[in-house]
């Protein structure tokens, strides 16, 4: 790994599309022009979400959502 991944970056991916795969992609019969990474996330990836201490993290937000539901709470 040449540089430190940022928040939300993929740190391990299962999918590396080859040049051949990219050039052969078609939508119907219209060639699709592609540039860069064709999509950000693929299934099977691992992401880096390093929340700091005290931050509202994904897992704590999920817990808050469930905890609110059992007492009749709803999102803002």
């Amino acid at each position: 790994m040449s540089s430190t991944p940022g928040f939300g970056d993929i740190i391990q991916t299962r999918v590396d599309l080859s040049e051949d795969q990219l050039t052969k992609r078609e939508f119907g019969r219209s060639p699709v022009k592609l540039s860069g990474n064709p999509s950000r996330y693929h299934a099977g990836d691992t992401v880096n979400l390093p929340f700091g201490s005290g931050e509202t993290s994904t897992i704590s937000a999920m817990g808050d959502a469930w905890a609110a539901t059992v007492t009749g709470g709803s999102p803002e």
Partner: protein
Amino acid sequence: MAPRGNSFGFKEPRKSNSKLGPFPIVGEFGGSIPDSLYSSNKEASWNRWRRGYELATSNLSYAAFEYPFSYNIPLPSGTTQSGENPPVMAGIIRGFPTKNKELGMHWCGSVLAGSLRFDNLVDQNDVDLSIASVTESGHFWRVQLAGTWDANNPLPPPLFIETPGDQPNLTPLNGDVLEDRVLTQADIPITKETIDPNTGIRYGYTAAVLDSIEPYNGVLILRKQGSVEATFDSVLITPAQRAPQVGRFFINGSKYACSCQDFTRRQYFYVSTFLGRRKSPTFPLTKCATLKPGRYEVTTTAGEIDERIMQKALQDRALTIVAPSGYELPYNQSVNSKDVNNIPSNTNRDFPGVFSDFGNVYTRGTDIPSDPNAPVPRSEGMVKYGDYDTIPPAAAGQPNQLIQVQDTWSHLLDEYRYCKHIYAMKYTDDLFPPEPSDFPAFTTEQVAWEQRLVDETERDQRKAFDNITTYGLSYMDVPPLNVQSPIMISMMQKMLNIPASFIKIEGFTMYDKNGNAYVPASGGRPSNV
């Protein structure tokens, strides 16, 4: 609807001469031996596994139907976000064009590993929930988390949510895959290639399903069966040969869900039947023999039932799960006393054609940690079914008495009841899923069956793509604007693992084919050049 059993291409037993007999029993529950074999074939996970591989290899050119997203979980009213990073969950929804689905495609989704991290959870004294110790217990690992735990200070949400009254407590993460891949708080998760600079060898990690918890002791119970280990040689092996490492933090593993009728156990309704273009029952049918008291979902807008597929794009709908007595999910919401959900006829039996028995993983050779004396099926010999309970006969010569029938969802890593679309996603993601052991009892030659499968899959994919280009996909038909349609919202809840009322379209940030972010709720559109 096609006769049951045909949909997976297994040869039906020869029809007997109607005049001569013999007349086979065709009911599935307690049916004849040919019928039971037939059900066994149809239900086989191996079948999904093999068909998923075929779908994956014939589907590569359709990778354009990928919708990567990050979902910002809304906070409950009255709470505010602290810190600058939003609580996002990363994932992808992928469309599978399907010939048998006249107006669209199946949507299969995945939440990525690393979205949930245990280094963001603390106990009552703000101690991070690292792994304090691990003990071996038969088929399970008992993982003691760091912290101080007692009856007043159980594991924090979402691991455990205590509910008021006599409602069952919630354990939303039970059944998810956990991986010990974070070494220190806020660290970058290790991969199977990450090398320890102090020793020069790879760290390695273990992935296993969270089977259950002991909330008041701060203990997680992980299942050894189906666990996966990334070894020092960067090889994935199953089952794992070593326990999760003390001092590390867990992250979630990939989680999958699909909108297809196989995964959701919901039947199709064909619009073209209603229009007179298709000769089949207007409404789906389920044999009485396979009817089962089941749950169903109702989507509502402002308290009114709203089952429209198309809605205003940004109109949020609510999901209510209706469960008959004895089959309640711990997640059903309170319902208005006057609405449809409290009519006894709606809550105490199934809707014909809507729900049939599926989704059980028939567990083999595992113990139940909370009740070691409970009767469990074993892998030796024939498969037995683990979703009922009996008491011994009152006297010799009498049969066991069935005292309880229930859903036994036992989430096993790579033995979770996936549909072929999920298997296809795993194949294309280079995760070659282990071959399920419930190999079908073919009534035809396997080679011929597979060759026919290859041909059919290719032909069906071509036809499906023709359908897509004929009918077209509107902007409303694709994620995230379709995620609150009746068929999608329950699948999205299963995938994101948050209450349906917290799944709002405005929370989705999508990424187009160039990797650029756009927010549909704010009028954002993907690049079309």
